[in-house]
């Protein structure tokens, strides 16, 4: 017994020693490798042709990669053109990136070019004097920014330079990358996505309003009561158990009418430029959404588990094709893929026309001011190089490079038009690591512009996957059938007659932050709405629903819904005087 014990301890101790020594040597070796570019940076002053090392923190990318110097052809191209070696630190959304940024800001260790992860941080960055004013640098190194995105410059000067007290020196501290519109011409971002094959089987019953959908969904449940695995199906289901579960109740119904929800209480009409209360107006899109889901529940069309489901649970049901209606491509993609894999590509979801006859619809969000706000850190030793890089990213050439890869390597110019190489298309389709290796679309979130911006040189979308020929190749069997039924080429064309299809989110920027009293109203109201709107879906009769709705509106008024909307309306009027 004692012997065994002893041996155990010896084993344990030797393990420690072993691990310790190998760790020390292993780390040392690795560090050497990582530290290699450092000496080159130090020598840089002696030999000017040595590339300048810049660190840059960035948003998260769709496919993550390890922080550090990248070796792909796209990054090599940047190095070749600008003589910059970029140490890139992508955000990792595993935990709170805002908190991490705040800690870095507090301890004063920002990279040369830093990304501000939240709009709530802009004024704090200004107050902390952490950013370099860009104005002089712009004149020298930012010609493309001034030429191509004057709005972003104006916008930044006017709205983003304020400190926590709202004071501004009128200089430019932030440059927005990305943004514009990223609308895919193929289909809209949010709309009724319906099981097209079942609708066809039912003989294309009329679907002009959202209420028309309910009986059709009930019919579909009769037509296909069980999925391929013998599990019960539902017309629609939700993920109300998740923190953002109310999205499906509010957002789509607003977008159908060309309106956006502001906070939990307000509605912004993007055509009329009107700000109204969504809670206390009984005819608002908010109430349309709640009433629709209530009716769905009363009719047995809504999955009874919706109330406790998380987003993960929703994905499971969607992938198993146990639901007939979704609100966005990412709601129903799993189902489409399952049909595809089961060898039944004729089944699937199709994005239907808008469920109303209004002439406005919100097809996508648009951020002409840019989406990812970058600033040059005061600590940076090479602000002029940082500016050069930002300028390149904004330029057509830069955006083109980030989104599509290197000309001659990943795409060619044929008859004056860009053409993506077949091997790139194949690579993207078949190799999950293709983006990381090739650099194509790897850094999409630091491209200067949005995907559907028009490239001045070719007069085509700057993202070549949006070229008309490429878009057509992406059509599925169902999308082809559906578009043909409506006499269009692409599902997205169903919305071409709507006006103001892109939602410009820049209208509220420059608004002062809520006062303490309003913050309190906001918190209370949000809590009340998030809890009670979902409970209202469970109400059993229309009569009871109307009574509860009246109570709800009264309570919302009591909590200050009108007050907070009024404040917004007044501030917006004030803003108009200085809006761009």
């Amino acid at each position, binding site marked *: 017994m004692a012997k065994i014990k002893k041996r155990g301890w010896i084993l344990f101790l030797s393990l420690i020693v072993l691990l310790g020594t190998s760790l020390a040597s292993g780390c040392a070796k690795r560090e050497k490798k990582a530290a290699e570019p450092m000496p080159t940076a130090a020598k840089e002053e002696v030999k000017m042709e040595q590339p300048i090392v810049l660190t840059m923190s960035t948003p998260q990318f769709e496919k993550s990669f390890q922080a550090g110097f990248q070796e792909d052809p796209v990054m090599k191209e940047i190095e070749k053109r600008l003589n910059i070696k970029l140490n890139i630190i992508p955000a990792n959304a595993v935990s709170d990136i805002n908190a991490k940024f705040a800690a870095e800001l507090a301890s004063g260790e920002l990279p040369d070019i830093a990304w501000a992860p939240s709009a709530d941080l802009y004024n704090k960055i200004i107050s902390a004097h952490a950013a370099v004013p860009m104005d002089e640098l712009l004149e020298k190194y930012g010609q493309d920014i001034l030429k191509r995105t004057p709005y972003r410059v104006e916008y930044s000067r006017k709205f983003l330079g304020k400190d926590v007290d709202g004071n501004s020196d009128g200089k430019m501290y932030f440059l927005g990358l990305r943004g514009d519109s990223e609308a895919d011409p193929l289909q809209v971002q949010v709309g009724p996505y319906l099981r097209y094959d079942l609708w066809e089987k039912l003989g294309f019953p009329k679907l002009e309003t959202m209420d028309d959908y309910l009986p059709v969904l009930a019919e579909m449940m009769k037509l296909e009561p069980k999925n391929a695995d013998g599990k019960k199906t539902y017309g629609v289901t939700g993920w109300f158990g998740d923190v953002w579960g109310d999205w499906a109740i509010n957002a789509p119904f607003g977008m159908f009418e060309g309106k956006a929800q502001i906070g939990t209480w307000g509605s912004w009409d993007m055509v009329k430029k009107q700000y109204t209360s969504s809670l206390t107006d009984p005819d608002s899109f908010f109430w349309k959404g709640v009433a629709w889901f209530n009716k769905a529940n009363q009719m047995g069309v809504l999955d009874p*588990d919706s109330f406790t489901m998380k987003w993960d649970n929703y994905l499971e049901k969607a992938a198993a094709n146990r639901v007939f209606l979704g609100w966005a491509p990412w709601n129903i993609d799993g189902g489409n893929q399952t049909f595809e894999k089961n060898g039944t590509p004729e089944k699937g979801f199709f994005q239907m026309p808008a469920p109303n006859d209004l002439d406005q619809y919100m097809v996508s969000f648009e951020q002409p001011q840019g989406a990812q706000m970058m600033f040059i850190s005061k600590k940076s030793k090479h602000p002029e190089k940082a500016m050069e890089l930002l300028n390149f990213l904004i330029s057509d050439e830069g955006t083109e490079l980030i989104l599509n890869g290197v000309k001659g390597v990943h795409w060619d110019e044929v008859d004056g038009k860009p053409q993506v190489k077949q091997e790139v298309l194949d690579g993207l389709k078949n190799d999950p690591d293709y983006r990381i290796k090739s650099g194509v679309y790897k850094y999409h979130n630091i491209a200067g512009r949005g995907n559907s911006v028009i490239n001045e040189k070719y007069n085509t979308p700057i993202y070549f996957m949006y070229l008309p020929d490429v878009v057509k190749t992406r059509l599925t069997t169902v999308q082809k059938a559906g578009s043909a039924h409506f006499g269009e080429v692409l599902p997205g064309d169903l919305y071409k007659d709507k006006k103001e299809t892109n939602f410009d989110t820049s209208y509220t920027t420059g608004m002062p932050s809520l006062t303490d009293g309003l913050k309190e109203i906001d918190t209370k109201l949000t809590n009340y709405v998030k809890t009670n709107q979902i409970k209202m879906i469970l109400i059993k009769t229309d009569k009871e629903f109307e009574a509860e709705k009246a109570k709800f509106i009264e309570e919302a008024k009591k909590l200050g819904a009108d007050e907070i909307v009024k404040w917004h309306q007044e501030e917006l009027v004030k803003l108009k005087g200085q809006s761009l």
Partner: protein
Amino acid sequence: MDIVHNQTRANPATCIIKMKRKTKTGLVLWLMSIPFFVFVMIFYFVPLLGWSMAFVRYIPGVPIFESHFVGFKYFKAMFSYGSDLPRVIANTLAMGFLSILSAPLPMVLAILLSEVKRLKIKKFIQTTVALPNFISMIIVYSIFFSFLSVDGGFINDILLKLNLIDKPTNLLANEGATWYFQTFVGIWKGVGWGAIIYLGAITAIDPQLYDAANVDGASRFRQALHVTLPGLMPTFCVLLLLGVGNLLSSNFEQVYVFHNAIVHNKIETLDYYTYRIGLVNFDFSLSTAIGVFKSVTSLTLLFLVNLIIKKINGHSII
């Protein structure tokens, strides 16, 4: 100790040697404790300078002493969201008391385990009951969901087939059952892991006590009651007291995943509440104020109960 004293008194020659040894012992003891205490001060108490953030309008990157002093503004703000707070505190305390009530369970499990005499079986059970501790809350929820869901959930299916219920029930959306259900989840997840502490403590019990009990003809049950249980009491009391200090903290992750609109009014605890108001406001000073408030209340509670026990019992637990 008495013997030592008598000896010193009796023999003055050894007195000096003893004295020397005593000072040496004292020095060694200082060396064995002070560095660690200094360590604790550096790693845990120096960061508390940051609590000053609660009294100024803190902006990351602006030094504290250059920040605008606001006094107790953020502490007042914490309570100004008024109407929700009584409900939130009621939930927190209710679930806190339920978890204190369930505090003996790991100890009971350890005693039951110690009654299993076949070592292999014992080890097997020990290992398996600790497993739930390693399952992340998100997965815990997805497992509970797949078992409890109204549509095709395992439990509902069985109950329906056995005709015990005529309509599926949804425990996850049952407001009335929330406190008990959440306590159950907590027990299920922690009981096997918590028992490990008591398994260690059982080994400290003097085997002679068991021998004596055996001679007296006490059954194994009586032995457990009169030897094992008292032997575990010191550990239990300390852990219970620590639990009292934690009355106001709940398992945030658990509340977060099991939270939904239907059970909101019963499941929202102080931690979730601070998360909710903090998230909206993005306010470092406010969140620090909340942290200060919680730390101070917990410590007050802990030492108050300790003091009361000292008054009643004659000696304190910590």
